């Protein structure tokens, strides 16, 4: 049978799931009565957020011009946090559909993924969807695509109505090249995803490049060197269905009693244990957390539960890292590393749904590389550990792609510049739409950049980013002192030029949040010993009932009891008491992914 492996690149809501459903119908992959809407998106978490996080490959059969074809659709996650996973999925394909909503046009994330596909030399089939809608602007979108790809042949479809879908499916067969690969060579496959099954361990999803694999084969994972025996191989229909063998060019899964998801890392190459020297496929990268946050149970006594939950999550989330940490205001918790803000949010949701745990996550920060005065290099992922004196400091920079209607260019450029951005490219996709790229420190991007971008563009701009490199920066740690005590969890690292402004901001916020105490409270922001911002909370002057006789006692007592209960919810920084909510407002600042 002939094989075509392809994926769909699309922005959220542009119709990827709807189109996939039409394909499944056309190929009779599920009998219509079995078919729940949008079978590809199955995790309910993803459904709610309208995003695909995990990819769910599906194998379809289609007869065209007297020939039987296997069509493997490999879905891609649509979020910047998972760029690496997207690139691995694309590496498993020979072609990709670029799907663009006729009413929305091209969005930044789509472009980022399109570039990934072009890097892999994939055949791109541009498609304009939703042409049934009255406000479809096919000409404009056509021009954008033309501008991006120089491609004249653009499909116009309505996934919802089914218009043009069959032609598109057949175009895939016509245009996407069949997989290369030699079934006679030793076995070689790429892991493009993996799931974790409580009973069977990690199950890698693979694309076979050379040779074949069947139960009983001994296989070797190139990155770890570990060897396993295959117990099952199978394909996605879209549920997992065992088969006898997976051959070069095919897409499927294998089960081999792999205990930990770390041993089935996305991007790794699996080869035959008989031919361990078979070279690995290029592009493997260890999952690397990019943002870090303190994670604490809302109920402090749930710390052991949180530990257990993270251990479990780690089994099927190779990107998650964590170590214990302690905060005076929040108690015992963990410093957790995430791929990005969405990954962070997903982890919070999973802790809630799968373990019933409510957690507090502190303002995320990036990782820093610091060369100390003695020449050693230190990696810092918690601001409180950032040294006061150093030779050089480096912070991660990313390339941010932004697509926006031209009228918002001004405020967006201003935003990027205020975040230490440097413009790299600037480009009109059509007369009204601009694509431009900025190099920005990741820290600036994860600190409410997205919210600000949406605000200044009234929701119209879209963005994506990719990691560039660590770059030297003039960074300082700003300490926050309350009543002369340093509050570790409030320390932050910023570029020197912004230290004063942010220090002032935190001090002012704290001044508003900390209720008056019996004594004066001094709040300071400091770099080393140098105080850069300061304010005072005057002491309570008067809190006394003038008249207190028989009839007043109950009311007065109830008031005191309420105050006392309120006090219990106060957290202590040294001898200063402040409401946990207030502290949290500060620890978590305001950020949204």
């Amino acid at each position, binding site marked *: 049978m002939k094989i075509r492996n392809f994926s769909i690149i699309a922005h959220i809501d542009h119709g990827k799931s709807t189109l996939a459903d039409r394909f499944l119908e056309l190929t009779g992959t599920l009998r219509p009565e079995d078919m729940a809407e949008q079978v590809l998106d199955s995790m309910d978490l993803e459904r709610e957020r309208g995003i695909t996080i995990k990819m769910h490959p599906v194998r379809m059969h289609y007869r065209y011009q007297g020939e039987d074809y296997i069509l493997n659709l490999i879905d891609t996650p649509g979020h910047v946090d998972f760029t690496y996973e997207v690139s691995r999925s694309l590496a498993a394909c020979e072609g990709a559909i670029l799907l663009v909503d006729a009413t929305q046009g091209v969005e930044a994330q789509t472009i980022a993924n399109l570039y990934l596909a072009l890097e892999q030399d994939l055949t791109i089939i541009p498609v304009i969807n939703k042409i049934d809608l009255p406000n479809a602007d096919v000409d404009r979108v056509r021009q954008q695509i033309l501008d991006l790809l120089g491609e004249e042949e653009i499909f116009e479809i309505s996934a919802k109505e089914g218009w043009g879908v069959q032609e598109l499916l057949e175009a895939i067969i016509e245009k996407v090249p069949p997989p290369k690969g030699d079934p006679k060579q030793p076995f070689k496959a790429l892991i493009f995803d993996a799931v974790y099954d409580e009973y069977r361990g990690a199950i890698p999803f693979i694309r076979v490049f050379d040779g074949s694999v069947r139960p009983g084969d001994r296989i070797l994972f190139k990155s770890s060197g570990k060897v396993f025996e295959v117990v099952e191989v199978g394909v996605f229909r879209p549920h997992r269905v065992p088969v006898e063998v997976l051959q070069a060019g095919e897409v499927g899964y294998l089960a081999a009693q792999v205990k930990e998801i770390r041993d089935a890392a996305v991007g790794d190459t699996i080869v035959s244990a008989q031919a361990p020297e078979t070279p690995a496929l290029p592009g493997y990268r260890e999952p690397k957390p990019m943002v870090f946050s303190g994670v604490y149970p809302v109920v402090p006594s749930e710390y052991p539960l949180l530990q257990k939950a993270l251990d479990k999550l780690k089994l099927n989330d190779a990107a998650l890292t964590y170590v214990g940490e302690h905060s005076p205001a929040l108690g015992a918790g963990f410093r957790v590393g995430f791929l990005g803000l969405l990954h962070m949010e997903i982890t919070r949701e999973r802790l809630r749904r799968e373990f019933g745990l409510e957690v507090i996550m502190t303002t995320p920060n990036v990782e820093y590389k610091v060369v100390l005065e003695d020449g050693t290099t230190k990696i810092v992922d918690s601001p409180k550990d950032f040294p006061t004196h150093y030779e050089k400091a480096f912070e991660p920079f990313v390339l941010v792609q932004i697509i926006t209607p031209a009228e918002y260019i001004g405020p967006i450029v201003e935003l990027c510049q205020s975040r230490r951005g440097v413009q790299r490219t600037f480009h009109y996709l059509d007369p009204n739409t601009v694509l431009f790229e900025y190099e920005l420190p990741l820290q600036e991007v994860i600190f409410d950049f997205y919210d600000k971008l949406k605000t200044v563009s009234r929701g119209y701009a879209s963005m994506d980013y990719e990691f560039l490199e660590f770059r030297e920066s003039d960074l300082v740690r700003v300490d926050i002192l309350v009543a002369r005590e340093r509050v570790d969890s409030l320390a932050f690292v910023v570029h020197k030029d912004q230290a004063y402004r942010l220090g002032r901001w935190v001090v002012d916020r704290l001044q508003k949040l900390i209720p008056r105490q019996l004594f004066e409270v001094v709040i300071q922001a400091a770099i080393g010993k140098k105080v850069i911002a300061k304010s005072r909370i005057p002491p309570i*002057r008067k809190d006394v009932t*003038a008249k207190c006789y028989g009839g007043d006692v109950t009311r007065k007592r109830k008031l005191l009891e309420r105050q006392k209960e309120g006090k219990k919810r106060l957290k202590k920084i040294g001898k200063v008491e402040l409401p946990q909510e207030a502290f949290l407002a500060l620890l978590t600042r305001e950020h949204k992914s």
Partner: protein
Amino acid sequence: MSGKPPDPIRRGLYLHLPFCRRKCRYCGFFTLPAREQDFAPFVEALLREIEAKASRYPEPLDTVFIGGGTPSTLPVPHWRRLLQALQGHFRFREPVEWTVEMNPESVTPDLLALFRDFGIRRISLGVQSAHDEELEILGRIHDRATAERAISWIHAHGFENVNLDLIFGIPGQSLESWIRSLEWAVQQGPTHLSTYHLTIEKGSVFEQWFQQGRLTLPDAQTVEAMYRVREEVLGAHGYQRYEISNFAKPGYECRHNRIYWEHQEYLGLGPSAASFLYISDISARRWRNVQDLPRYLQNPCFTEEDESLGISELITERIFLGIRLREGIPFRRAWIPEAVQPFVTWEKGRVRLNQDGVLVADRIAVELVSALEERGAIHAETLRFLGRRTPDPGA
């Protein structure tokens, strides 16, 4: 913690006469317009209550305090029936302290003579200020001259135990004006002075004005100075502060009011009056009579806000009431929170407020109760420990 047998519990009687000729602008008490036709049915109901309560709560009384409202608005014949009923139905433990509250405009020689006849020795007079403009703002219906005349009559009738009520923090009042009021009051020769910082009470006219931004109150600094200056002025004349708002010449502290602050028992009669009686040494009941004339007339034993108090409630009350007193409360030194230390002194097992502490007494109470709670000390032992009294200085 205490080895010796506890002192007998003292019991006071409070009787509320709600009638006032005009509602003062700062007043949040339960009051009724003084209408002639209401007096007789009211007194009837009161007599019924006296009879009922005296038989239900027969323990002897140590003090009686008749307050209001303006008790002095009630005409002499009604007063006579009332006092007869009280003295006829209740039992007393000598020496009993009897106090009647009066307002200057309704002090009459007849009434004073009657009080004397019934053995009443103590008069509490609401003079509030020495300045007519301030009295006017407060909505009082007397002026300084009326107050002075009333005091001279009171003295002329042989009452030597007299309290004067004063208010500070009045809209527009200056520190100097407050000092002059204090000095004026001292010149009137009272044995006792109550000095209350004006509180914006719920339902008062001042509350309304306050919300509308029409009330210019002295600033926080001035009020603080007003609190502090009391000690200077009154101290110089031999008055000692024995509670946050109360000053007395030695031996003239109000025994009735001490009952509240020392967490002793009281029985309240008349609408809105509160009662507090122990059920055991670690539980008590507090209730309030109805605050509604028709319902009170219908059944003077109707209650509202009836609650039982357990160890935790009693401990909280003992602390915030007791800390108001000069002698403070028994407390372990090591348990005094750091933040509280600058506001208290500790001596012979008791913690008491210093000059600065007086201004933040309520907050200190919260801190002390929290300190006990943090140490898991909310239990019967602590309650008994807090109940240890110093000898009654008023006796």
